[in-house]
Each structure stands twice: as C-alpha cells, then as structure tokens.
C-alpha cells in the first residue's frame, strides 16, 4: 500500500505540465475550439512527448507504461482542459495490444505510438445511452472479408481519426455475439458528419455501410468493457486535473475579488463552500487512484471498482463545477472567462462513459455483503 509516485512518474508529470502551461494556453485552446475543436498539430505534440505510445509496448515503438503513468498524464491534461482525445488513444492502443491479431498490431500500434495514426472508439449508438451491450451495428463475413453496417454517435474527432474500433453484432448459429472490428476512415462505405460537443471538442456521427473491417476479436463484450474501463480511469484522472485547477482558479479569484470592502475569501459562508470543494476534490482524487490501481483486477472486481470511482468523480465534478461558478458570481457565466470552460468540461466528463446516476445503478446492482477498498 503505497501512494507515492516514483521519480520517473514525477518527471512524466513535470513534462506534461510544462507542455500544458507553455504549449497549450487558454488562447491557443480558444483558437482550436473556434477552428473545430481538434488540432492535429497539438496531437502531434502529445506524440512528441511519447504520450500517444504510453500504453504501446516498446517492441511496437511505445513506452510500455501502465495505468499510473496514464493517470498522471490525464491529470495534467485535465488541468489544461486539453481538447485532443489522448484518452481515446490509450483505450484503443490497449485494446489492440491485448486483443488484436499480431498483423493488426504491427500495422497500427507503431503508427499510433508515433502519432501518425489516430484510432478512436466508436461504440456509442442512438438509443443505447450508457449500455454497452446495446448494439445495433451488424457485421458479416464473406469470402474472408468482414464488413460492418451501422451508425455510431459522438465519435471523438470522428472526421479526423484514421480508424475506429467498432463494436458490431455477429450472427452465429449459436446466437449473436458482440465483436470488435477496426474500420479505417478512408474505407468505402464510411461517411462522417462532424460537430462540436459542449466542452468545445470535436465529435462526429460515423455511418458505416458495408464498410470493410478487420476483426479484432470475437470476444467483443469483454474487450469493450476493458476498453471502457480504461476510459473511465482516464476520465477520473482527467477530472481530478480539471477539478484541481478549477479550485485553484476559484481560490485565486476569491482572494482578489473585493466586495463590501474586503476580499470575498474572508466570508465564512463562502469559505465553507471551499472546504466542501476540497472534500470533493480529495474524495475524487482518492477514487481516481482507486480506479487506476484496479484496472488489472479480475473483471467483476474491476467493473465494480470503476462504477464506484466514476460515481464519486461524477458527484465531485458536479459539485465543484457548480460551486466554482457560484463563488465567482456573474463573471463565471461569461464565455470570456476561463472558469466557464472548466465547468463545461466537468459537465461533459460526468456524462462520458456513464454518468452519476448510471454508475450508482451499477454500484447498487453489484453490491455484496461486505464492501471496502479490497472487496
């Protein structure tokens, strides 16, 4: 039981923080949002730092790191509310590395690690909300070639990515099963329609019409759950970074802003809200550690842990976001001031991979007689 970071992990944190502070300031972010919410150049800078290959083995040109390094990285990106979807790369690279045939790994992982290829998860469907098992997309095989037909929503940077990891149903005599495929954006039968999401980042509807696909695994449900759990751990860590910075911005403002002749930080009614924000931040940070450290646990334990963690982070994000706006007052509801962007990011992260109510249902359904960090 040890929650200290190693020297290497601290160095990684410093490197990412330095890039966020110097290379990704609010003005650059604002320009990226105005230009559509995704900047390939910025993504390339993440690759230069080695982050796109964080989970990729050294044999495939990556850094071969683990969940703690991913957590450290996502926290720092959260502090800068970075738009480029590194979490997607962490999810898809881990999925390919664990489940894809060697040929597919060799074709994609080195390019993903180098930042030359972006692969994102395209699992969300209309009507499915947060249920991973609800999948209308269909896959079929003919003459050794798989094709996938279906429409996926809210695909991160969906019109910019080079390929998608796509869950689709395969019909077997013994019943239907969910499988995972890799579909290239440039393939025939792929149409995208991009739009902005509430946090300023970019997403797309991806329509697949008999699009050629490569099979990753027929055991798709377990693999999809693994991918989403990596995503949940990423979101939790990112949320910690966003909340940490949101609180810091709020504290600075409260010590500067004067009303009734004094800094508003002197008012006890406001100070107690800040204490409660600190509480939610540290509960959230604790459960983010918990999520990342449970990623390698057996599936049932892992799923339960992710639900608990995401419920806590959702609760923390909602509280800290709303309080930050209230404590700032009117300035916080303007587009010009930075805190509204942190608030929107927190709101979106809550609704990514299962919101608070959904996760509460998961925790509730998975309860056992005993409970604790180790059970």
């Amino acid at each position, binding site marked *: 039981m040890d929650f200290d970071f190693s020297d290497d992990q601290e160095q990684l944190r410093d490197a990412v923080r330095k890039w966020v502070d110097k290379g990704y300031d609010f003005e650059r972010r604002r320009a990226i949002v105005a230009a559509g919410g995704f900047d390939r150049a910025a993504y390339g800078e993440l690759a230069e730092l080695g982050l796109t290959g964080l989970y990729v083995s050294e044999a495939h040109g990556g850094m071969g790191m683990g969940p703690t390094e991913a957590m450290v990285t996502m926290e720092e990106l959260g502090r800068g509310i970075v738009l480029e979807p590194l979490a997607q790369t962490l999810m898809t690279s881990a999925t390919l590395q664990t489940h894809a045939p060697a040929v597919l790994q060799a074709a994609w992982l080195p390019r993903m690690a180098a930042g030359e290829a972006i692969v994102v998860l395209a699992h969300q469907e209309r009507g499915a909300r947060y249920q991973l098992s609800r999948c209308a997309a269909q896959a079929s095989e003919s003459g050794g070639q798989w094709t996938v037909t279906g429409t996926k929503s809210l695909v991160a940077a969906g019109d910019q990515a080079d390929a998608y990891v796509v869950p689709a149903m395969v019909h077997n005599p013994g019943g239907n099963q969910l499988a995972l495929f890799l579909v290239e954006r440039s393939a025939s039968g792929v149409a995208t329609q991009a739009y902005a999401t509430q946090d300023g980042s970019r997403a797309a509807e991806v329509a697949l019409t008999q699009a050629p696909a490569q099979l990753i695994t027929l055991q798709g449900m377990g693999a999809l759950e693994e991918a989403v759990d990596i995503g949940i751990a990423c979101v939790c860590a990112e949320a910690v970074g966003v909340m940490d910075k949101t609180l810091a911005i709020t504290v600075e403002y409260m*010590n500067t802003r004067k009303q009734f002749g004094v800094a508003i930080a002197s008012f006890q009614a406001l100070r107690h809200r800040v204490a409660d924000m600190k509480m939610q931040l540290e509960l959230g940070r604790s459960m983010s550690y918990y999520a990342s450290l449970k990623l390698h646990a057996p599936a049932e334990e892992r799923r339960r842990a992710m639900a608990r963690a995401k419920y806590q982070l959702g609760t923390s994000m909602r509280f800290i976001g709303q309080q930050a706006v209230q404590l700032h007052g009117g300035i916080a509801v303007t587009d010009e001031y930075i805190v509204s962007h942190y608030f929107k990011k927190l709101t979106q992260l809550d609704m990514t991979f299962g919101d608070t109510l959904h996760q509460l249902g998961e925790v*509730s359904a998975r309860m056992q007689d005993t409970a604790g960090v180790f059970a």
Partner: protein
Amino acid sequence: MDLAFTPEELAFRDEIRTWVKGNLPADIAHKVHNAMRLTRDDMQRWAKILGKKGWLGWGWPTQFGGPGWTAVQKHLFEEECALAGAPRVVPFGPVMVAPVIMAFGNAEQHKRFLPGIASGEVWWSQGYSEPGSGSDLASLKTRAERVGDKYIVNGQKTWTTLGQYGEWIFCLVRTSTEGKPQTGISFLLIDMKSPGITVRPIKLLDGECEVNEVWFDNVEVPAENLVGEENKGWNYAKHLLAHERTNIADVNRAKRELERLKRIAKNEGVYDDLRFRDEIAKLEVDIVALEMLVLRVLSAEKSGKNSLDIAGLLKIKGSEIQQRYTELMMLAAGPFALPCIFEAMDAGWQGDFPGGTLTNAPLAANYFNMRKTTIYGGSNEVQRNIVAQTVLG
C-alpha cells in the same frame, strides 16, 4: 503506487485476525454486532484482555511497553478488531492521555500512570469541554490556583464521556488569565476520588447517560500531577490531536456497520427496493472513498510526508458517514424502529418486541446518539474553517 499491502503486512493482519478470533469473548462480539448495550464490565473485560497481551496501548512505542507498530500495522489492528465485533477501546487512557504523558510527562509520571493505563486497570476520563466552552475550547474557565505544593481547582467540566466510571481525569485548567486564552492553560491529572469532585450524569436524547458534568469545588491536586510546564497545556492538547488523525475517521467500524445495514435492509424487505438500495450504494461509495483517504494518509505517514491538508477532512467525512448509516438502519426498520423499550437493547431480553425483530430495538437510539459526531471533537463547522484555512489562507 500500489494498492496492495505488503506480504509482511498481510501476515501481520492474519496474525491479528487469528488472535482476535481466539480472544474476543463471543457474548461481547454478539452485542457489538447488534448494537446492544455494553456494560462497564464488557468494556473493561475486553480492555484487560488486550492489556494482558500488551495491545491496549496498540499505538505505543516499545520504550513504554507498546508493540511499536507502524501506522499501517495500527490501522490493520484496528480494522481486525472492528470487523470481528470488538468494542471500541475507551480512548481516554491509552489513546489520549498516555501519549501526552509519554511526550511531556516526567519519568516519575511515566512510572506512576502508564502501567495502569496499559493494563486497563485504571479508567480515565477527559475534562476538556465546559458549559461556556464548546467549539471555542480555549475560553475554558476552570481555575487551578497554585498554593504551595498543590493546585486548588474550581469550576465545571461537562460532556465527560463515561465519567461516571472514571477513576482519574485529565483536565485542561486555567492557570493564567494573561495574554491569549491559549497561553494560560495547563494540563492536570486529577484523582476523581478527591474530595470536592461531584459527577452528575446527563441523560441524553436516547435515554442513556453516556456523558456527565464534573464539578470541582476546592479540589486539592498535588503539583506533581501537572504534566509538563504550567501554561503549556494547550500545546500538549494539540499534540494529542495531531496524533489522532486516522482513528477519528473510524472507517473500519463503518465497514462493519455497512454490513449490518445490509442485513437489516434484507430482513426488513427493503434491500431490493431500488429507491432504498441506491441509498446504501451511495453510502458504500462514501465508505470506500473514505477508506482510500485513510490509506492515503497512512501511506504519507509511512514515507514521512505531510498529509495535513487531507487529514483534516477525515473527521468531517467519517462523522457524516456514522450519522448516515445509523439513519439508514432506522429508516430500514421504518415504523418498527419506533417502540422505545430500553430493556430490549440488553442481551438476553426475552420480551416480545413489537414488530418482531429484536435487532430493530436500538436503531432509533443509535440514530439519535450519533448526532453527536458532527458536534464533538471540534464541530464539523470548525473543521471546515480549518480546511478552508489550508486552501484559502
């Protein structure tokens, strides 16, 4: 970064588990698991069993006869005791006054007081709060006047937990009215059999007399019972608080009580009512998050890092959780928590409890009783002031 305990720590836990299983009296564990009334004898019996093993002062260093455990070992010991259904050790002797005597008392005081605390023979009480001094403890007025080789103590303490059983009491007393209120306070050990001391139990809302008023009327206390220096008592009391960070969160007991809540909810048919079940699920997440917070503080202690900024949160969250599980237990029983039959909370009662299930008898009383947790030990509002200070300056 590693969530798992080391193999050595796990072996230690197993050793404790085996010992507790073999030595905790079954009748006591049964009462604890069902929140029945514990007698003075129950509490003393367990304290003496621990004392005989050398574990009543489980946080003590070896030089004073303690086991010299690490912060993690102490945590594991507390967890095993709590989960097995051991009563909470009455903390005033082994956990509260002993560390102050060790750190600031003289060799004579070590020899005189520590053995009786370590064995569980002597029952200690705490004399801090006064009718006019609650959260603002430093405003305390109980006066100790030095006359020759004695102090003459006059005043009143209150909320003295289990003081009706107390043989000795450690008090914060005013020895000076000059300067800041904090600088005129001394730490005095007082024999409760001294002439002039009156203990009056206070009946609480749950019908129990858990706390007392303690009156001092020209009580003579030998000057040798002063711990450390005169007028430095406030610092000693603060030292005590700094050494009681994780214990106050009481997360181990919360884990045991969560199990009890689930048993009660199943028994009362509300465990499968999603509206109720979700409330248990929220509490479960709260408890896991609190446990992670505790583990983070322990890890920081292990590597010698300062974790003060999160340790302050433990009391707030821990106390809220204690209130919540008692509240949910009561709500699970619903109308059957309402019959107020005190005898039904005693082990072995043979009467007919309305609503049928005897384990429902203490639920409302427990709920009422737990309202204290956000008030005592520095009210949660005072704790928020402290947390806000660390964040806002």
